[in-house]
């Protein structure tokens, strides 16, 4: 029997749970089809989490899922320019016409980029600092100081994959208009289908939390208490560093892992700080949002 995971018309952080629910429901199906033919808009979070879904399906089912390319030519072209299909071809069986694009056609801050090892983190950070600092400051009005911290936050977000996921993942950085805020934002999305926060922290933290232990408690421990799986007290500071950076620039951080999602919510947003009992999805999916023309918090 086949199972279809429908990719929503708009795929971003808020609609990703439909994909996660589809992933969970497709367990046991002989064939899984990830259908993006009707998708019209996608965020960097959507692009990276779709790849994570493909990786998770392949590992769970032992063979690649089918992936239906967006039917709209312009949409498919955009995905191609973002580098999505280059990586999707390695984990999905692609169905539909994949547009060919020339290297360097993209104007985004960072196309979908794989993160597997520390050297990849270096490449990502250097790319942003070398090629995108100008865009961040002149076009988006970010304070030059914010671009330095931006590199730090990007580095720490990517290192979570290298240090904890137990597998590779993807990162993408775009800027676009955030409807709720009414201004441009820079969005960093980092996603993997690895072991996730609960599994990583279970050996050292499960006993401390007792019956409360779960994906939500693991996210709280990591993000709010800077807990790490390592006993070294110097570890676990990466997410705290991201929080401080976003706090300075009124940014937003959210992390989904397993069945829970935690968010540090700035005054301009009304997201829920902790959501539990979501459809299970492996690994960790992280999003950082930095508003353009951000003024440093006093």
């Amino acid at each position: 029997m086949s199972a279809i995971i429908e990719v929503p018309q708009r795929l971003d952080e808020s609609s990703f749970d439909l994909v996660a629910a589809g992933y969970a429901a497709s367990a046991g199906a002989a064939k899984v089809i990830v259908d993006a033919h009707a998708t019209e808009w996608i965020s960097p979070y959507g692009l990276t989490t779709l790849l994570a879904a493909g990786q998770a399906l392949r590992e769970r089912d032992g063979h690649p899922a089918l992936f239906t390319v967006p039917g709209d030519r312009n949409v498919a072209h955009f995905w191609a320019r973002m580098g999505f299909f280059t990586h999707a071809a390695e984990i999905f069986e692609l169905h539909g016409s994949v547009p060919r694009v020339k290297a360097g056609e993209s104007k985004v801050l960072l196309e979908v980029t794989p993160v597997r090892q520390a050297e990849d983190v270096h490449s990502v950070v250097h790319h942003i600092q070398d090629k995108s600092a100008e865009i961040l400051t002149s076009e988006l009005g970010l304070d030059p100081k914010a671009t330095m911290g931006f590199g730090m936050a990007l580095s720490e977000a990517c290192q979570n994959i290298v240090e904890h996921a137990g597998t590779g993942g993807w990162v993408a950085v775009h800027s676009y208009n955030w409807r709720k805020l009414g201004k441009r934002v820079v969005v960093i999305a980092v996603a993997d289908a690895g072991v996730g926060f609960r599994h990583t922290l279970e050996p050292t933290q499960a006993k401390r939390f007792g019956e409360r232990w779960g994906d939500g408690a693991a996210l709280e421990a990591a993000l709010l208490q800077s807990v790490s799986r390592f006993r070294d007290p110097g570890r676990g500071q990466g997410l705290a560093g991201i929080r401080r950076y976003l706090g300075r620039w009124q940014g937003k951080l959210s992390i989904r892992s397993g069945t829970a999602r935690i968010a540090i919510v700035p005054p301009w947003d009304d997201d829920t700080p902790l959501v539990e009992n979501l459809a299970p999805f492996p690994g960790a999916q992280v999003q950082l949002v930095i508003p353009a023309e951000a003024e440093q918090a006093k």
Partner: protein
Amino acid sequence: MITQIDVREVLVQLGHGRPDLVTRPTGRAVRTSIELELGRLSGRTVVVLDFSDVRIIDCSCADEIVAKLVQASFGSELQLDAFFLIRGLDDDQINDIDHVLRPQRLALVAETAGRLRLVGEVADDARAAFGLLAARGRTDARELADALAWTVEVARTVLDDLAGRRLVMHDDGLYLAPHTAA
């Protein structure tokens, strides 16, 4: 003696062309290089870690380089009587290092705009004592006690604690700020 270590130059020697201190493996490699350099020295030394030409330092590198070097100065890893001072970082970067040091109950001296300040976990009275000492360059327990309206015993205890944490130098009854001491 003062030893200046250009951290950017250490990165270059390790084959990193760009001025970004990111990831733990890079931090470990930089620290190992610095430890090798310090292994050639002996005696009391102010070690100035100069980050002026570094663009980014993430929390992982801050821990691997700064925190672990300070930690090493209390153990047998370094034979040196080392007093660490960091220079060339902006306020946000120093703030990040402060947060990396605090959970480990570590501290060190930072120089910003020509002034010395303590970064990391330090009690308020020790911070006040250091502020006065940094402004004067050197002091003794009596002078500090007079300036801060403390007893001499309290002033001496606070200064000894700072010296024990390698944040000031103690020499023949005088306590000296690292940059003036060498």
